[in-house]
C-alpha cells in the first residue's frame, strides 16, 4: 500500500464516470489507497444521502457512512466489477444501515404524525407554492413537517419516497439497491405519493372541521 496521493495519475478527462470508477477500483484492488480515497470523495455525498434517508438520525449518519467505506475498503479485493461500483457500495450502505438499526434495536426515527393547526397551514402553503421555500430554517421546518407526515407511511414507502425525492436516487438505482424490479419501484413510488398526499389531505380536512366547529361555537 505504498501508493501516495501524488502517485495517482489517472487519465480521467476522457472516460465516463463509471469507467473512471472501474479504473479507481482496479487501482484500489492493487493497493493504491489514494485511488480508494478518490472513490470515497466521489461517492460520499450519495452514501451520506442513502444512510441519512434510511436512518433519519443526523447523529448516526456520519458514523455509519464511515463504516460503509471501511467495509468497502476491506472487501474491495473481492469485488469482481460485474456490477457498477456505486451499486455495490450502496448495497453495502443499505445492509450497514439495517445492521446498525438491528444492533441498536431501534427503528428509523419517526415523529408524531399529528400536526398542529398551525403546522397544517404552513404545510398547505408549501404544497400550494410554485417554488420551494428558501433558507435553511424554512427547509428545516419543511423537513420536520414532512417527517411527521412520513411517519404515517409503511417503512418501504417512506424509504422509497425519501431516497427518490429528497436524496435524488433514480428509479433504476433504487431497484438495484433494494433488489426490486424497476416496474415495481415505479408502481410503489406512485402509490406512496398518493398515500402521503392522502395523509396531508386528512390533516387539512381535520383542521378545516375544527375551524368550522370553532366558528360555530363563536356564532
Amino acid at each position: 500500500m505504498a501508493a501516495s496521493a501524488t502517485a495517482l495519475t489517472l487519465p480521467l478527462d476522457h472516460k465516463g464516470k463509471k469507467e473512471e470508477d472501474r479504473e479507481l477500483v482496479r487501482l484500489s484492488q492493487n493497493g493504491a489507497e489514494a485511488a480508494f480515497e478518490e472513490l470515497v470523495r466521489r461517492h460520499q455525498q450519495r452514501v451520506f444521502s442513502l444512510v441519512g434517508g434510511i436512518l433519519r438520525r443526523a447523529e448516526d449518519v456520519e458514523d455509519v457512512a464511515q463504516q460503509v467505506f471501511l467495509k468497502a475498503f476491506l472487501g474491495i479485493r473481492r469485488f469482481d466489477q460485474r456490477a457498477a461500483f456505486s451499486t455495490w457500495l450502496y448495497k453495502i450502505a443499505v445492509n450497514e444501515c439495517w445492521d446498525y438499526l438491528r444492533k441498536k434495536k431501534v427503528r428509523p426515527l419517526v415523529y408524531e404524525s399529528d400536526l398542529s393547526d398551525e403546522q397544517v397551514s404552513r404545510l398547505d402553503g408549501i404544497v400550494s407554492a410554485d417554488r420551494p421555500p428558501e433558507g435553511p430554517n424554512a427547509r428545516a421546518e419543511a423537513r420536520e413537517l414532512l417527517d411527521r407526515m412520513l411517519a404515517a407511511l409503511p417503512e418501504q414507502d417512506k424509504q422509497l419516497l425519501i431516497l427518490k425525492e429528497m436524496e435524488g436516487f433514480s428509479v433504476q438505482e433504487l431497484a438495484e439497491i433494494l433488489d426490486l424490479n424497476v416496474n415495481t419501484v415505479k408502481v410503489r413510488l406512485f402509490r406512496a405519493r398518493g398515500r402521503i398526499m392522502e395523509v396531508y389531505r386528512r390533516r387539512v380536512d381535520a383542521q378545516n372541521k375544527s375551524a368550522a366547529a370553532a366558528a360555530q361555537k363563536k356564532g
Partner: protein
Amino acid sequence: MPKTNLPLRPRRRKARDMSTEIGLGKNACAQYEALLEDYLDGALDTTEARTAELHVQNCEPCRAALQQASASVRLFRAAGPSEGPGPAFARTVMARIYAAEREGAGDRAGIWQSLVKLGWRFAATATVVLAVLVTYDAGWGRHLQRNLNSPRLMHMNDIFAPDPANPPASRDEVLMMEAENHGN
C-alpha cells in the same frame, strides 16, 4: 379502496401495509401507474408522454392520482436533500482505514509473537530435559562401572567364564567343570 376514518397511530408502530388505514380515494388504473410515475419523473419520450396525457384526460381517477403525485413532488422539493458530509469526511474515512490496517497488522504480529514465545518455551524445556537425561545417564554409567568392578561380580565372572587356556572339549567336560566349581 373505501375511505376509512381510522385514527393514525402516533408513533413507533410496526411497519405494515397502511393502505387500509390511509384512504386513497379512487385508485389510478393499475396498468398506467408505472407510466404515470415515469411521466412525473420526466422519463418518457414524446410519444409515451402523449399516451399518458391522453389517458389522463379521459380517466378521472388517474387524473386525480397524477395531481396528488405532483403535489407530493412539491412537498419533497421543499424539504430538500439531507446535509452532506463535511469537507474532512474522506480524510476521516482514510484515517479510520489506516487505523484498522494497523490494528490488523498488530493482530497478525501478536499471533507471530505468541508462536515465537511458544517456540522458545519448547526449546528451553527440551534443553532442560536433555540436560537431565545426560546427567542421569552419566551418573548411572559410573554407578554401573563401580558395580562391575566389585569382587563379587568378578568372582561370578570366574564362575561362568571358561578358562581360555583349557577350553572344554565336549559337553561332558563342561558339566564336569560346573560340578567342580559348584563343589568349591
